[in-house]
């Protein structure tokens, strides 16, 4: 039997592990709503992780988070320049941007963290007064780090941006019918570039969450495809920040399962749990697409 303490522990771990995925996916859902599929968010997330580690080592967690956002923005700028301004193929440009970010962070990490791994300051778990005592919900959702709470704010904010503002209307028009958006006087390139940058900033935050709230250090290629999973999550969440957050939680759960089973002394090979989120993402793609096709002009340059 699984007791309730184990269950709460598992659920809280799901939220913690799901946080970087949700942050990256919410940002990517904005980019994809504008018609840009950015495989470079894997690289932006990795750059964010690197920025967070360097920033936190030198100036504490706050600078770590700030540096992560800047790093994510820088990577997204490269993608926007190639795929929006120069209208190159989005898939290939995104792959290239991720490659470049992997190489660069690997190179710079060698320099930044030589002479033994310095211990990084870690984001503390913040107990939200009063609501942390709500049974189940409290300990699971409200004993987390500030980046998880940032995610709680970002989700409704992204949703409001997309559906409650003029900018969101224009952004979605760029993703559905760039020609019609142009006819309506929308500057498609500028709008898409902005959407990509928002996605990059979110991916940077995701990298910060990975380093400062989960792993506690930077290692080469440490994102291990989480950015790509975020792209699958966006499709599963139907290109909508709320759905995306729910899907991210599901993937957080799939990953957290690993720790729970290990703790329980299971004999199932741990590689199965390593592979599980990716297999789940694949299955999710199959199920998600039948119901919603996503922005009509997704992936098309304009």
């Amino acid at each position, binding site marked *: 039997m699984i007791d309730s303490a184990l269950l709460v522990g598992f659920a809280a771990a799901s939220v913690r592990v799901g946080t970087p995925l949700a942050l990256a996916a919410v940002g990517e859902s904005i980019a994809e709503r504008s018609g840009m599929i950015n495989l470079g968010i894997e690289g932006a997330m990795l750059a964010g992780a690197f920025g967070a580690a360097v920033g936190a080592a030198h100036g504490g967690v706050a600078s770590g988070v700030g540096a992560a956002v800047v790093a994510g923005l820088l990577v997204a700028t490269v993608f926007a320049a190639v795929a929006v301004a120069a209208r190159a193929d989005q898939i*290939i440009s995104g792959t290239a941007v991720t490659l470049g970010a992997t*190489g660069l962070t690997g190179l710079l990490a*060698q320099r930044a963290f030589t002479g033994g791994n310095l211990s990084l300051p870690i984001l503390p778990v913040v107990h939200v007064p009063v609501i942390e005592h709500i049974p189940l919900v409290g300990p699971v959702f409200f004993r987390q780090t500030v980046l998880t709470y940032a995610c709680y704010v970002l989700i409704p904010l992204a949703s409001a941006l997309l559906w409650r503002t003029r900018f969101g209307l224009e952004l979605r028009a760029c993703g559905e019918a760039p020609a019609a958006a142009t006819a309506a006087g929308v500057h498609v390139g500028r709008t898409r570039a902005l959407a990509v940058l928002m996605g990059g900033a979110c991916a940077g935050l995701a990298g910060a969450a990975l380093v400062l709230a989960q792993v506690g250090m930077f290692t*080469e290629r440490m994102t291990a*495809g989480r950015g*790509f999973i975020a792209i699958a999550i966006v499709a599963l969440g139907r290109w909508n920040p709320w759905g995306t957050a729910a899907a991210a939680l599901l993937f957080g759960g799939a990953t957290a399962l690993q720790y729970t089973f290990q703790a329980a002394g299971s004999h199932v090979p741990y590689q199965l749990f390593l592979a599980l989120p990716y297999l789940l993402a694949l299955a999710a793609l199959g199920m998600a697409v039948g119901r919603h096709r996503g922005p009509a002009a997704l992936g098309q340059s304009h």
Partner: protein
Amino acid sequence: MSGTALAPDRTRSLLQATVPLGLGLLVLAGFLVLAGFPVMPAVNALWRGAFGSWYAFSSAALVHATPLIILGLAFTLGSKAGAINVGMEGQFAAGAIAATWVGLHLGALPAMVAIPIVLAAGLLGGAVWITAPVILRIKFGITEVISTLLLNFVGYAAVSYAVTGPLQESGRTYPQSDAIAASARLPQLSHGSRLHLGFVLALVTAALLSVLLRRTTWGFRLRAVGAGPRAAALTGRIPLTKVAGVALLWSGALAGLGGAVEVSGVSYALFQNLSPGYGFTAIAVALLGRERPMLVLVAGVLFGALEAGAGAMQRDAGIPAVAVQVVEAVVIITALLTARRSA
């Protein structure tokens, strides 16, 4: 595109291939300076590792070039039909697992029989690994981009499982397999060099693919589907999903072959991290080669040299080998931008 390639055209293509590479190296040098690494020793090590001697060139550069050429051709095959296979890492792993598994059991057979079986196992392993993305694309219209990408990570997990589980060495100490049977190994081309028959196989594959794409109806149909799907369907009466699906399947199979060649020509056993990112580097190779098999060959050799140099750079100058991915990124982006301009 179709008929004979003219000499000036070929010279221009070579030029187009050199410029992005040079730019990539420059950017890398810039970052080395920025990060405070000594540049000259790095460049020295890079050059020595790649072209410093015939031994370095043949035993390191061409050995690294072999999987890059095969995977570059695999990407080309898919993208000619409009299918983007970014899952070559996974297929490479699957091909390597399959080749190792059969290679361990072929001791009784002569090389003439054992080697083809190992290579076929690699092809099959790669094809199996891409089957799910092919089905998802044909049946549900789901883009292969994300599905193949995700399966890379499942491939890494599968190798990790294989070398700590069913294929782990008899000593059960290290996460690696036993060495495959001697008869299942690709022979070296000359004594004292590590260059193996796999390089010749890569050359033959490039020539074969070039002929297939340009001189056969099969290849023409494939190119038509990639270049103009509506016209291919309505005027050429070509079944789009079937042709693209078959191209993708062969792309996966070729990537699996790359894994088999690496096991039976270089490592002789299965390891974790058998591929230092060949599956992604090969995309740069294919783009730099303008998706023309014989140019992919040239680009593969250049990138093989780069990989070899990166290895030397890490050994001799303490610069992480992963840094060459910066060069690859610049090459892909430059190739994308110049392709647009010349189109």
